[in-house]
């Protein structure tokens, strides 16, 4: 009786079988890698803004503290983007005729918002609260990076859930004294873990990892 299948079909079958295992695995793996990559998380990608605000100049050169502009960071969930009126505190006198600041003046005098483009964007189902992090000794730099070296704001960290959980599961090495929260180049005087353990005890740090801490 002649065989039904030609001989080459044996190999064909083995190849297909292999592909059937490899292709979905590859797709899923690549997918999972892609989602964590800067392509998706937008890490280190500067965002163009309607007003060319230079953090490096304002923080490093002028020496303004983070909280002067981001005023609600210690009191509420959102750190707060400053209103145009705050910019005008200085820029009604400094560079007050500059073309680059025209949108700011226009926003102030017409009492309309400057449409800043979001850089750090968490999904809508994540409820992040700045004030508790500040209160427990998490510095601005930890999540936002060296803002004093950014001419254009970029997201320094991936801000994936993995990033948040890594710290929440072990916050102590990332802690710093509360008066150094906004400091940009602070280093722990000793081993960060040892120092952090002391701070955690002092500040009563209990980083929660239950789901409803962030997902409500």
């Amino acid at each position, binding site marked *: 009786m002649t065989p039904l299948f030609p001989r080459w079909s044996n190999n064909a079958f083995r190849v297909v079988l292999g592909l059937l295992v490899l292709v979905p695995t590859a797709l899923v793996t690549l*997918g999972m890698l*892609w*989602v964590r990559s800067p392509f*998706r998380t*937008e890490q280190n990608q500067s965002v163009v803004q309607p007003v060319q605000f230079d953090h490096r100049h304002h923080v490093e050169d002028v020496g303004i503290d983070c909280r002067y502009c981001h005023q*609600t960071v*210690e*009191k*509420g*969930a*959102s750190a*707060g*983007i*400053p*209103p*145009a*009126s*705050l910019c005008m505190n200085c820029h009604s006198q400094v560079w007050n005729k500059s073309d680059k600041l025209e949108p700011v003046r226009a*926003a*102030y005098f*017409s*009492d*309309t*918002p*400057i*449409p*800043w*483009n*979001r850089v750090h*964007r968490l*999904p*809508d*189902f994540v*409820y992040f*609260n700045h*004030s*508790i992090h*500040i*209160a*427990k000794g998490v510095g601005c730099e930890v999540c936002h990076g060296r803002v004093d070296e950014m001419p254009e704001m970029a997201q320094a960290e991936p801000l994936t859930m993995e990033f948040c959980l890594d710290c929440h599961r072990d916050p102590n090495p990332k802690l710093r004294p509360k008066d150094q929260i906004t400091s940009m180049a602070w280093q722990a005087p000793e081993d960060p873990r040892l120092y952090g353990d002391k701070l955690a005890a002092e500040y*009563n740090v*209990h980083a*929660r990892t*239950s*789901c*409803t*801490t962030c*997902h*409500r």
Partner: protein
Amino acid sequence: MPSLKIWGQDEALGASAPKAEGGAEAASASVAAPSEETLARGWFRSLEEYQGDRGLGARVDVQPVVPGEPIPDSLSRRSFMQLLGGGLGVAGLQACFKPPPGEILPYGKQPANLLPGEPQHYATGLEIDGIVSPLLVTCFDGRPIKVEGNPEHPENLGSTGVFEQAVLEQLYDPTRVQSVTEQGQIRSDESFRAELSKALKQQEATQGAGLRVLVTPTTSPLLAKRRAQVLQRFPKAKLVEYAPLELGFEAGTQLAFGRRLTPSYSLDKADVVVALDADFLWTVPYGQRAAREFAARRVPQGARPMNRLYAAEANLSITGMMADHRLRARSSEIGSVALGVLHAVTAQRPLAGLSVPAVDLGSHARFVTAMANDLLKAGGKSLVLVGPRQPAEVQAVGHLINLALGNLGETVSFRPVANQLETERSALAGAAAGAPTADATQGLRELVQDIDQKKVELLVVAAPDPVHSCPSDLNLGGKLGAVAFSAYLAPYHDETAKQAKWIIPAAHAFEHWGDGIAADGSHLVFQPLLAPLFGGRSEAELLGLLAHDATPPHELIYGAWHQHIAPDQKEFDGVWGELVRRGFVGTETQASNPSAPGDSASGALAKAAQRKGASEGLELNLYQSYQVHDGRYARNGWLLELPDPVTKLTWTNAALVSPKTAEKLALETGDIVELTLRNRTIRLPAYVLPGHADGAVSVALGFGQRSPLPRSDYPSILPTFAVNAADVTDEDIAGADAYALRSSAAPWFDDGLKLVKTSDHRKLALSQELWSMEGRELAIEVPASALGTRQELAGEKATALEQPSYYNPVEYRGFKWAMAIDLARCTGCSACVVACQSENNTPIVGEEQVKRGREMHWLRLDRYFTGDSLDDPGAITQPVACEHCENAPCEYVCPVNATVHSDEGLNEMVYNRCVGTRYCSNNCPYHVRRFNYLNYSYGNKSETEKMIFNPDVTVRSRGVMEKCTYCVQRIERGRISARVQGRELKDGDIKTACQTACPTQAITFGTLSDPQSAISKLREDPRSYALLKELNTRPRTTHLVRIKNKNPELA
């Protein structure tokens, strides 16, 4: 009718098993065979449905499915599978794409002290039919999103009723009137004002003889001042104060004592309370304090015994459900019941100069005698309440009983009616002007007569929809069109708006300044929470136009309070600021209790004694709806979908009849009937209600208006169907308009009703079809004599909380959140349900979806009938929400771990992980999980409808399970703010929405980690038990048994 035996507690609590009672009993008690339709369809929603025609359950009309043929009116199986496959493929890709770029929009000039994104709380208030509720409203970024009571005010101590919670929904309703129109054409505000001033100038010539102003009675001094100003400018004009539901007690006190007085009750002092057609546990018109004080006595505390409640009524109310003893009597018989009590009481404690006629009580005699004896024993610690539905002479009988028993000054105090209008008029005119406002319907009657006689040239209406609620014999609607210039301050495009010439958008209560006087005499200021969204105007502003006074209302209030509080002080701003922040200022009120009956008391007794001859028709019993009140909330989706506390009906009213009446008329629940009275007919479904009086039909007022949601079946596969107010047509009417049967002569109950059963049948959207507990210990109620230790209380079976478990024991080191719900205090008012919906962005789903059992309320109130008798059952209400079981059956079945247990004992629901398997809901024995079958919250929502969402809580999309979270957003907010401020969390710092809203404080929430907390103490209370404890779920929510204090004479 099959002999239906409702399983009572006696059977359940380990007494002799029902099987022992004989074969016949067992046969009727066992589950009957499923009906044809159920077998054909294959699924059923309740036991009643399963058995089809059980005599009292709803008969389901569903087309049977024939195998092989496509399912009628629905997607075919093949297309469904195709869509499913395609959908799955697309859905998985969502995570891969980047989110759309977002913008942050700060202020241009930020107001000082503003924390964007953080809640702010403003004190304000709301007045409904003379009941003023002090409120505290939570606002985010200028949007009010949650209403609470003002915790500093003794009237409600932070709680609210149902309506205060739900009015928020109407604030953002896009179907509100948005522009000034003249006979259908949109006009500008200037043109309205120009036309109005022209018409007013004409009226000035005749001193306003042709001007009529139709308003609602109010306690507000601001509105009184404005109305007085109008009358000062036009002395011959007439101001008609009209409320569809006359819920005042002045007419009764006038007859009893010769003076118009307002009662205020101290129910905490009463050992025996008798409610004759008085639903005092409902917040309008009795207020929240009455319910709270009554409920506080519902549990024996130390030496102070528990109170006892008797109720006599025709329709089953929430007060009737709470009563220890209840008498079913037609509304027309309540008068003789009251007289019987007065006769028995004055036999022992006579009233000087008053002889009480004897009445033949028939079958009610035994009840009345026992009740009167109990009252006499309690003496000055009793209270008899006669509800506002009863005519003035019967109310007078009630007041006289209190007088005879010595209750005046103890459990009830009177004070003179504050006639604000007259005070303001005399202040303006310098002399007392005119008599107090007469009976309100009389005012409306005169108005209609004046319109007939063409005396009315200019009519301004600032009452909510008087055409709809006006008694049918007056026919205001037909006549309104004849008035030359009519202007209506319209909240909606309702029936009055159709008739009026000019329609002015009305500002919502939260959009304008106002004031009011609460029941305890304190003066409240209502500050607005946002500027009118749709250009609305308040009544004060409209009357200001009439009075030609452009002073802004808030300046008037400021001036009045300056006068009232600190007339000598020049600098009032600081005091004013503090007053507005707090919301009220207390005032001492002088009680003025009569000591003897008035002159007209005997006449009132004689009138009350006139018994109507037995009529051949049924008695029509109209009552204020628990959902829409008098109809002003008929467009409020939250309220329409809120199940009625007694019938569990949503989206409609019904003709309620007793089982005996239903049997006589061969009625089943859902049969469409025609009710005819005085040549007017309405069509509505019937509903068989155990506990209803025989020979009477009850219908709730306020329905029969255009419903805000479409009633036709949705295309059930499309993901974004619009549940949108804009898609409403005129066919979408919710319920039947009972005002059509109402005549001004007999506004509440009337004889001679004819009921004709039609051949139509309609499935009702009931949120609960089950009536009995079927032998399970769900809502436990014990007699007061059985109170003892936990073991004695209901046997070990019900109250022991711990059983051996094969799970590893979990050690909770931090907070241990738990909740206790006291069934002894729960009246079933459903304020907690609306509060939860408001706080947690729970959607409404519409009538069709409710019929499928898809209502989304996280917290539901189960209502069970108890006892042996179908005619005279007991009834008990039980709030059930997620129990947050320590051994939660829902957690271990989730394939994607979307529901997990927190380290503090919360059963957490993570919406973003949920894929919609619904296994958790399947496994939950309490059925507290709700699934978003469709996109209830999304869809074509208008911009203002989106503003109502609480930003602290995720808005759930289709395909996601949700349930009570113990208000985890409040827990987190409370915890974060305490930790940021470096303080400890105290018991009571974190309150769930349901806990805050409950007027009787039946819900307690807190952490078990603190042995001094209220919840820890309640856990140890012998009355505490876990629902379905035998399943070993170890719920964190426990209930406390209800206690019945029965009179041994009547038991």
